């Protein structure tokens, strides 16, 4: 069955199909309609879950931590400021090895106020021990919710899926709704190895001295690294059942390319059009969409990029003092390779500014024109 739905409702329906059992959330634009729809689905019984309308995002994540520790499938969603407020509890969730799934509708952070799209919110959380996936379409959003629960429960780490404010969250697209019975087979009920249980009492998260703490961190790192293979397996399995798969990264028309554009989220859709146009004109331009950001898919990227001369990374985010965050990660991932492309870094579309085909053409033009990357990220699409 196909339905026309906005990205936010694709999240809600993905959560319903995944049979989440406790949902706790707080309203924030542009995430709000995710939890509005979920509260309706819970109220009319289509989703048998407890919906806890908390008084802050911090409490939303704390509720999820409690519920997941009690042994149930747990979900929340937020944006921008809300995610920033949650920060402390994101560390808590991963440290406690709880497979919570969260949708982040990427929104720029204040000050000044801005409710529009930018990834700096989620990328500021890159060191919290959450896997991060970035989605390009509403279909991918719904499918990724289901995949996220599967990945999270497999490796006992939380997963964050990200979608662009308004470009996805509030834009309607046709979305194929998977059969519930197929989803149930793909994602069986959550059976935690450990949970809070008076019949089998344990202490969770107690004071852990230097003699032990480090090993717990090491295990998280190992699980996070394992998460890459698991995410790939889950995507492959999803493809076999539902006929759609997305990869950890998605190369688009990269054959024989001398320049590859790298981006993520909804900008990837625009980039496809730009690449198609330039290919028609004989330019050897390709595009790679990065879907999995944490753990960073270094090997997969290297395989595509190794022989390419130039790579242009378009970041809708900024780490002040460094520049584009995807570009920074790319450079870090490739720095020990003997044969590697030059990484050109561009910042575009902050605070919801449109990243139009002319902006991406400009990125490609500048990358061709320059011999070497600039020392700093180049800001494109600026007011003149």
């Amino acid at each position, binding site marked *: 069955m196909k339905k026309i739905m906005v990205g936010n409702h694709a999240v809600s329906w993905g959560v319903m199909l995944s049979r989440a059992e406790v949902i706790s959330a707080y309203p924030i634009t542009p995430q709000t309609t995710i939890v509005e729809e979920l509260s309706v689905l819970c109220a009319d019984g289509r989703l048998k879950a407890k919906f806890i309308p908390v008084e802050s995002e911090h409490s939303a994540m704390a*509720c999820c931590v409690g519920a997941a520790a009690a042994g149930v499938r747990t979900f929340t969603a937020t944006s921008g400021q809300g995610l920033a407020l949650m920060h402390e509890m994101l560390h808590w969730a991963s440290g406690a090895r709880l497979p919570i799934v969260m949708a982040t509708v990427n929104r720029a952070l204040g000050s000044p106020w801005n409710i529009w799209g930018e990834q700096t919110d989620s990328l500021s959380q890159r060191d919290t021990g959450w896997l991060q996936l970035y989605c390009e379409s509403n279909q991918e959003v719904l499918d990724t919710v289901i995949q996220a629960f599967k990945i999270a429960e497999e490796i006992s780490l939380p997963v964050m899926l990200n979608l662009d404010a308004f470009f996805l969250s509030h834009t309607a697209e046709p979305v194929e709704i998977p059969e519930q019975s197929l989803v149930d087979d793909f994602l069986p009920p959550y059976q935690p190895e450990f949970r809070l249980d008076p019949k089998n*009492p344990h*202490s969770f998260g107690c*004071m852990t001295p230097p003699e032990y703490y480090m090993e717990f961190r090491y295990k998280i790192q190992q699980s996070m690294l394992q998460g890459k293979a698991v995410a790939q397996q889950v995507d492959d399995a999803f493809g076999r059942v539902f006929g759609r798969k997305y990869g950890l990264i998605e190369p688009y028309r990269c054959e024989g390319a001398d320049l590859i554009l790298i981006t993520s989220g909804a900008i990837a859709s625009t980039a496809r059009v730009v690449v198609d146009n330039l290919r028609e004109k004989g330019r050897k331009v390709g595009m790679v969409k990065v879907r999995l950001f944490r753990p960073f898919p270094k090997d997969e990227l290297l395989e595509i990029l190794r022989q390419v001369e130039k790579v242009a990374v378009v970041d809708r985010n900024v780490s002040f003092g460094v520049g584009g965050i995807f570009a920074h990660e790319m450079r870090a991932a490739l720095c020990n390779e003997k044969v590697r492309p030059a990484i050109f870094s561009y910042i575009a579309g902050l605070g919801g500014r449109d990243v139009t085909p002319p902006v991406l053409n400009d990125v490609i033009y500048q990358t061709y024109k320059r011999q070497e990357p600039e020392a700093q990220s180049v800001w494109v699409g600026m007011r003149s």
Partner: protein
Amino acid sequence: MYERRELMYAGHQACAGCGATMSMRYALKALGEKTILVIPACCWSVLAGPFPYSALQVPVIHTAFETGASTASGIKAGLEMRGDTETTVAAWVGDGGTFDIGIQALSGAAERNDDIMYFCYDNEAYMNTGIQRSSATPFGTWTTTTPANHPKGQPKKNMMEIMAAHRIPYAATCTVAFPEDMMRKISKAKAIRGTRFIHIYSPCPTGWKAPSSLSVKIARLAVHTKIFPLYEVEGGERYNINVDPKNLPVDEYLRLQGRFAHLTDDEVHTTQETVDREWERLVKKALD
């Protein structure tokens, strides 16, 4: 009358004379083994024992400072989804985690009337970090952030009134000098559904600069000087005073504790006036 079995082991990390530790022991006797404890940052984060030990025989989840109530709400929802409607989910939180950093989450849970028990063991300052003032610290108190030449200038926040204003089904005060009263109230609260708040006055010899042998005596004096009256509030409206105080002067209580040693006669007088005024208010509510 109460469970003989101990659900707290003798091997914990508390200071001698710790009121919070006596409180936990009594509370667990009343709560029984079908209990899950939520402990945010507070003395009990340490007292419960470091990995791989636990001083408690019920499941415990340690959580962030301001999340005692919200973590408990999540656990309760999770248990209900698993079909467990019997287990008591109890947040066990210090005064800093209740009066200050955790008050928002607590207010949220109380407003939703989530089915949790919330214990505040109140030792009237941030004791785990080394005796800094909280909004539960009384007027005139020395702490490491309110030195004796500039002691706390504000009165203690009235947390019971804040909780009563949420019209939760049950709120009560209790203390270690009256263990039967404490266990009766906890047992009563356990049988009620919705948010239940238990405010435990919990002497801290270390932070109060008092001999550890006097903890229980100080708690008894707190009640008999009317500094900490023992009462219940049902539905946020029906007040019931459980122990008639002997009306002792506050000085008898204050002079046992080094944290009040610097108080002038005027300041003691101010404390007495405040205590008398608050007591009259409480009596009025109980007579209503």
